Structure formats: structure tokens, C-alpha cells
């Protein structure tokens, strides 16, 4: 489909979102709000140890406690055997999937679920947990990724062998995987370079921080069917995971997605659903489980801490001719960190002839990591974009000019081998360098004693975005409105951006489309709301369904006028008979459908990976002010320039950018999992796991650049994830500009900044 430039009627406008009134009045139902007659309440018993053998679990006393109806453990799973599952992101042993729901044999992190209880009230369930007896044999935990890679480290899994570039290793290890990307000849490149720069960087484990804890309600019916209501980023992936874990055919599992209070990737894996299902089967009643905030920190999927070493070879004119990276990511208790994504993104904005990237996926006694908004890329960009700043300073070149000189473009080959289609990276660099923020003067010092230092930093970032599969169906109502059924759970306004695309094609208003997020029985297979895919991929499906409706409406007009259908043209929702004077608009034709053939239902299913997913690039500018007496870093001004392809609903695109930047700022300055030597997270609350508040942030200025993605009729690119990639490095570079010292470890909290100031 050709990309259409020029004026759109609906695309680019800012209608009120269709679910907005429900959400501002408190009527919208999230998972924890779900009620049903006979509901039982569940609570989960979690390991106090970071690493231990489970010798015995005794549930007899708990079963006798008041109000308790059932207890479940790993023993209640169908035996996983050697089954392997492909849940879309890599192969995983079903045994490992089950073992993260309930520990089997060993607990591998503090917070690892061991058992769950269903009782007549949440309090009765909580009391019953205290009566479950678990005998542990504590083992030494390993909590640092480099320590875990040592041959002498305590091992989490007896049967883990390194997947070493495709070959299975023979030695027991904590290193699950070693991957390598190679392009050109880095050794030769470094030899030719005028100067070689090196740095080692460390990042800490951080959590997605969604305000809504995980929840799930399950009803196992006497007819053997299982229904689950939960807050999830993907009803179909919940169905797949649950049916895999419980060895059920998918046809017996129906997942109803409730509204969801944030996910950012962390609500793609299931945690509570299988337990709720097993408890429901045992009790014959619906069972609801809701996590508390401590459980969310300790028992779900934060993103890895990491150690990253980067080496860059540069010429005097600022051209980068060689780049090398070594990345070691904490996978948590089971293999599967996003180190491959970090490897793909680390030098992605640049055209570099010689690149070598090695990545290691390493297990440690921490929660199994889950995706967090551009998983792996923020860690990588912190390292590479900081080192690039050093190159710019040495070469005496403006940091944005350095990026411009090395910018990847259409036709550049990335280190993992992919050749870029039309991309907008250069446009973001140019827009940033021309932005008033970049040209504004920044007073270097302030405060009554000159104790406030100010500095400006920039950084770029990339996220590849995914396509995957989406299905929609749309029926035309007699009043000319369209009921659109889709399967992408709506975390940020996507039901509206999808509806807008359908409306644009049909020539009706956004308010004439009623979007509905259906459950797994009500819509065709639709992959997760994640990977910045929904407005792109489900939008594509909506566009195709709209064309399907249009074709049928042409048939109906032809029947209405008794003319051949190929004599009818349609433009902007008006159906015209070419040779006669007859014309009719969509609304009016809709009112006559019963006279000319009956209801019109359009449908489409799309494999969006085949269409040309557009990658996203961003360049950010930040001004910081550092109090050299306390180490506190204030963000004075933040500008985030991003190529968004085409902003369907600009307000929500701006919102994605602002939200991602805010998370990046928290990651840069304060957020981290603090562990004691025994492997206990000591700051598992919102008080001490310090996320940005309204007081910590200035206005974040999003600048939308539109370099259309040729793969989408309106030029849409995914936008949600790129914004979190540059902030840590941009802030590190700004801090360096302010105090002359470069921090190599996240978070750059007041203690670290003060130590850097004091030298």
C-alpha cells in the first residue's frame, strides 16, 4: 500500500478516548475489581530464602484452618516432563515455566512462590499461610552477575549448560547462553583508529513499577472448561501459558482481559493464573488472587542488572570505525534475559564498519526477569551513549554533530545483519540540534554559595519494534456506526488509535466507531500488547477490515441501484455511481442494508512482521542541576525528539514519550533493587523503591518527527518503547558536563554523585 501524505480527516486528531469516561469516573473494571458469587480469596506463600532446597511442605494444618477450602503446590501441576514450549520469545522448558509459578525441589529467590491457599476471605487465607510448614535447607545465594559467571559460583540449576554460540556446553554453569554478532574486522578497525576508548558500566535491577498489582480470578467449571479474568497484556498469551502449564487444550481455556493498570512488559508472563485455576478446580468455586506490593517487587519480573564493557575506535574527524561490546545480563532465577535485544540495540543508531558484540545470559538468585519497555536496550545505551560522549569531547566535536557524522540511514547494515529500510534517525539528530533547548544558554553555576552546578547532555536510542499477529472483526450498525472487535488489551489508549484508523478508511468519525477489547472466545488470535506493536499491527488489521467493509458496501450500493459493482467509486466514505448521478454516504447506506443484502461484517487477520515494521529512533536533550553539597540531581529541562512515523493520536504518542522518559529518569537517578547479603530485597515498597513523583520532574517536551514507515498505509511506527532508552545516558552526560566526572554505575543517586563531586 502506498503511504499517503497530505491531510487526513481523523489520523492526527485528538478525539476523547472511547473508554475515557469510564476511567475518570471509576467505573472501569480492573482485575481486582472483579466480583462473582461464591468467590474465594487466595494468598501465596513465598520463600524467605534466596536459595534453598525444599525438604518438605506440610499443608495439613493450613487445610484445617477456619475458612480454608484448598491448598496447592507444585505437586498439583501435571508432570511437565521434558516438554518444551515456544511462547513466542524463545524455547522454554515447561518444567521451568511451572517452577516459577510454584517452586519445585528448590527455591531460587526470596519471594519465589511455594504454595497458595484459597479461603473464604483474604484474611483467612493470609492467616492460613502462616500454618503451612516448609522445611528448607538454605544454600548460599549468588547475587552478582560477574560472580555468577565464575566456575566457583553456587549453581542454581544442576542441568544448566551454556548454549555457547549454538553448541551445548558440558560444564554445569550459571551462564545459560553466549551469543555473538560480528561484522567486519574489529581488530583491524581498532588498529586503524586514531584513538580507542574503553569503559565498564554497571546497572542495577529495576522494576516496571506499574501501579496496579497482578491479579487473576479463575473458575474451573464442572464441564471442564476454565475461565480466567485477569489484568494482562495479552489474553491469548495467558491462554497459551496456562494451557501449557496445566496441560489443557486451548479450546478449554477462555481468558477475559480486564482493564489493566500498567504493564510495560511485566504483565506478559503469568504468575497467579495457574494457581487460581488449580484452587478453583479443587474447590469448585471461583478463586481470586491479588498480589500486594511487596509480592510484586519480590515475586514478579523486574529487568536485569548488568555489566557492560564497551570499546570504541574513533578517527580524529569523529568517524567511528570500530566498536566492541561485552554484555552480561542477570536473567534472574531462570534463563531468558533480554541480552539479545541489548546486543541488537547497542550501536544501532550508527553506521560502523567493524563491530563485535558478545552477550551473556546469566542466572542469579533474584526473581526471573521479564520484559521492561525496550528490554535490555536502556542498559546498553547507558554504556554506549556515555562512551560516545567521551569520543565527542576528545575529537572536539559537538555530540550531536558526532552522531550526525556516524548516523545510520536507509541501507546501513546493523551488527546483527539486518539492513535498515527507511528510518528517521538522522532527522531526530537534526531536529534536536536545531531545537531551542539545544541553543538555549545554560548558566553553569547557581545557588547562594555557587554549590549548584548545571550541565547539558544528549543521547540517542533505538528500538526495533515488533509486528506479530492481530485479528479484528467489525460490524456496521444501522445508524452508520461501526462496532469494532479487537483483541489488543488497552494499556494506553490503543482502542482509540485503532478505531481512528478504521474510521479514516471508511470516511466516518472516530466517535462513530465503538471499539471493544474482546476475550479469547470473541476475537481471532491477537498477540500481546507490547513491543510497541498495537497501533501499527492491530491498526493494520483494522485498516484491512475497513477495506473489507468497503468492498461489501460497494456490493450493497450496486444492489441498491441495480448497477454493476465496477461502476461504483468510493472516496472518503461516499459511494458514487460513476455514470449516473447517484451517490450515497456511508451512514445512509448503512441504514438501508436490510434492503440490499443484509448485515455487513468486515474482518482481517494480519501477520505484521511481513509488512515492514518500522524501527524507532530518538535523540534526547537534558539539562540537570546538581547540588554539590547533597549530590541531588534535579532535572531542569527535558526534550525528547523521536521519529514516530505518523502520530495517529498525537496526545497519546506524546504521552508514551513522556511516560518512557519519566521511567528512564527514575532508572537513571534513584531506582534499584537493594539486596542484603542473604539475598533479601530491602526496599520492597514504594517508599524506598523511589520512583519519580510530580515534584521530581519538569514538563517533558516531546517533539514528534514523522518519517513515514513504508510498511504501513499511514506511515505508523511503534512509539512506546524508544523513549526509555536514551535518558540514563543523556543524564549521565549532563552530569559529566556539570561536575566534570563521569558516572559508570546506575542509579546515579545522591550518594554516588556526591562521591564523584568530592573526587
Amino acid at each position: 500500500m502506498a503511504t499517503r501524505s497530505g491531510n487526513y480527516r481523523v489520523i492526527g486528531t485528538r478525539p476523547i478516548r472511547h473508554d475515557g469516561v469510564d476511567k475518570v469516573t471509576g467505573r472501569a473494571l480492573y482485575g481486582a475489581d472483579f466480583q462473582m458469587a461464591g468467590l474465594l480469596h487466595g494468598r501465596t506463600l513465598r520463600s524467605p530464602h534466596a536459595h534453598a532446597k525444599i525438604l518438605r511442605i506440610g499443608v495439613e494444618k493450613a487445610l484445617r484452618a477456619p475458612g480454608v477450602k484448598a491448598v496447592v503446590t507444585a505437586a498439583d501441576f501435571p508432570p511437565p516432563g521434558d516438554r518444551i514450549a515456544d511462547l513466542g520469545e524463545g524455547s522454554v522448558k515447561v518444567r521451568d515455566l511451572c517452577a516459577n509459578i510454584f517452586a519445585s525441589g528448590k527455591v531460587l529467590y526470596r519471594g519465589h512462590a511455594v504454595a497458595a491457599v484459597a479461603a473464604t476471605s483474604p484474611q483467612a487465607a493470609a492467616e492460613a499461610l502462616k500454618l503451612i510448614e516448609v522445611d528448607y535447607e538454605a544454600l548460599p545465594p549468588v547475587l552478582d552477575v560477574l560472580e555468577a559467571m565464575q566456575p566457583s559460583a553456587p549453581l542454581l540449576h544442576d542441568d544448566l549448560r551454556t548454549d555457547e554460540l549454538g553448541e551445548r556446553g558440558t560444564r554445569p554453569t550459571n551462564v545459560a547462553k553466549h551469543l555473538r554478532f560480528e561484522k567486519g574486522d574489529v581488530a583491524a578497525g581498532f588498529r586503524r583508529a586514531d584513538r580507542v576508548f574503553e569503559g565498564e558500566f554497571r546497572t542495577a535491577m529495576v522494576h516496571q513499577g506499574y501501579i496496579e498489582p497482578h491479579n487473576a480470578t479463575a473458575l474451573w467449571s464442572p464441564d471442564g472448561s476454565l475461565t480466567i479474568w485477569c489484568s494482562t497484556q495479552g489474553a491469548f498469551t495467558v491462554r497459551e501459558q496456562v494451557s501449557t502449564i496445566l496441560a489443557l487444550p486451548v479450546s478449554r481455556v477462555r481468558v477475559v482481559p480486564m482493564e489493566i493498570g500498567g504493564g510495560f512488559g511485566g504483565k506478559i508472563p503469568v504468575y497467579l493464573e495457574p494457581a487460581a485455576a488449580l484452587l478453583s478446580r479443587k474447590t469448585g468455586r471461583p478463586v481470586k488472587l491479588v498480589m500486594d506490593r511487596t509480592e510484586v517487587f519480590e515475586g514478579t519480573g523486574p529487568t536485569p542488572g548488568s555489566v557492560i564493557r564497551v570499546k570504541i575506535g574513533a578517527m580524529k574527524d569523529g568517524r567511528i570505525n570500530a566498536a566492541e561490546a561485552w554484555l552480561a545480563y542477570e536473567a534472574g532465577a531462570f534463563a531468558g534475559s533480554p541480552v539479545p535485544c541489548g546486543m541488537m540495540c547497542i550501536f544501532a543508531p550508527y553506521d560502523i564498519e567493524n563491530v563485535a558484540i558478545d552477550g551473556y545470559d546469566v542466572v542469579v538468585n533474584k526473581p526471573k526477569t521479564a520484559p521492561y519497555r525496550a528490554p535490555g536496550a536502556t542498559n546498553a545505551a547507558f554504556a554506549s551513549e556515555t562512551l560516545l560522549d567521551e569520543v565527542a569531547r576528545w575529537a572536539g566535536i559537538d555530540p550531536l554533530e558526532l552522531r550526525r557524522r556516524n548516523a545510520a540511514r536507509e541501507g546501513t547494515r546493523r551488527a546483527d545483519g539486518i539492513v535498515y529500510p527507511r528510518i528517521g534517525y538522522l532527522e531526530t539528530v537534526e531536529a534536536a540540534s536545531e531545537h531551542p533547548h539545544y541553543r538555549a544558554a545554560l548558566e553553569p553555576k547557581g545557588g547562594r554559595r555557587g554549590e549548584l552546578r548545571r550541565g547539558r547532555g544528549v543521547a540517542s536510542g533505538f528500538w526495533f519494534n515488533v509486528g506479530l499477529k492481530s485479528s479484528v472483526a467489525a460490524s456496521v450498525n444501522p445508524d452508520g456506526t461501526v462496532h469494532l472487535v479487537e483483541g489488543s488489551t488497552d494499556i494506553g489508549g490503543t482502542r482509540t488509535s485503532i478505531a481512528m484508523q478504521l474510521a479514516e478508511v471508511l470516511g466516518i468519525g472516530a466517535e462513530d466507531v465503538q471499539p471493544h477489547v474482546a476475550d479469547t472466545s470473541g476475537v481471532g488470535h491477537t498477540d500481546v500488547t507490547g513491543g510497541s506493536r498495537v497501533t501499527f499491527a492491530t491498526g493494520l488489521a483494522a485498516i484491512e477490515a475497513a477495506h473489507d467493509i468497503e468492498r461489501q458496501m460497494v456490493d450493497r450500493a450496486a444492489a441498491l441501484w441495480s448497477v454493476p459493482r465496477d461502476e461504483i467509486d468510493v472516496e472518503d466514505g461516499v459511494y458514487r455511481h460513476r455514470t449516473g448521478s447517484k451517490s450515497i454516504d456511508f451512514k445512509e447506506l448503512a441504514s438501508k442494508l436490510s434492503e440490499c443484502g443484509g448485515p455487513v461484517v468486515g474482518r482481517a487477520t494480519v501477520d505484521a512482521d511481513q509488512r515492514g515494521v518500522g524501527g524507532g529512533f530518538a535523540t534526547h536533550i537534558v539539562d540537570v542541576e546538581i547540588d554539590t553539597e547533597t549530590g541531588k540531581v534535579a532535572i531542569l529541562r527535558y526534550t525528547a525528539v523521536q521519529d514516530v512515523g505518523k502520530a495517529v493520536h498525537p496526545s497519546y504518542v506524546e504521552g508514551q514519550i513522556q511516560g518512557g522518559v519519566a521511567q528512564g529518569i527514575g532508572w537513571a537517578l534513584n531506582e534499584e533493587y537493594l539486596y542484603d547479603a542473604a539475598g533479601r530485597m530491602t526496599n520492597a515498597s514504594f517508599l524506598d523503591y523511589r520512583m519519580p513523583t510530580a515534584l521530581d520532574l519538569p514538563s517533558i517536551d516531546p517533539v514528534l518527527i514523522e518519517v513515514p514507515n513504508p510498511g504501513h498505509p499511514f506511515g505508523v511506527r511503534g512509539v512506546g518503547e524508544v523513549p526509555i532508552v536514551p535518558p540514563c545516558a543523556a543524564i549521565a552526560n549532563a552530569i559529566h558536563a556539570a561536575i566534570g566526572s563521569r558516572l559508570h554505575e546506575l542509579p546515579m543517586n545522591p550518594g554516588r554523585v556526591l562521591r564523584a563531586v568530592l573526587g
Partner: protein
Amino acid sequence: MTVPGRTLREVVEALEALHPDLKGWLREPDGERLRPGLAAAVDNVLSGLQQPVAEASEVQFLPALRGG
């Protein structure tokens, strides 16, 4: 490296014939899909085994990736 094939499946079979140690590594045991964790791009577009491959097409094997 250059291998013959009119579809991605034929390309994979040709690779496996040239390098027997790739057998069992690129594909599922039943040969119907790439193994979990592996993706393939034909001319920079992610593709399945049925994807036609042209005379000068470029095929890359990549880790299967996801977002958050």
C-alpha cells in the same frame, strides 16, 4: 555464504546438507518450523519456512526477540 533454494525451507535444507552439525539446531525435529528462539529474515523481513526466496535474496538468522 551462498546456498541454493527457492524457499526458506530449501535454503535451510541446503545449509544442513553443507553443515550436518546444523541439523537439529535450525529447525524443530519435525522440520516444520524454525526452532524456538530462532527467527529468520529474508531480505530484512521476518519470515517463515514457506517464504519464497529470490535469486539474490539475503537470509539472516537472528535470535527471536520481543518487546515489553
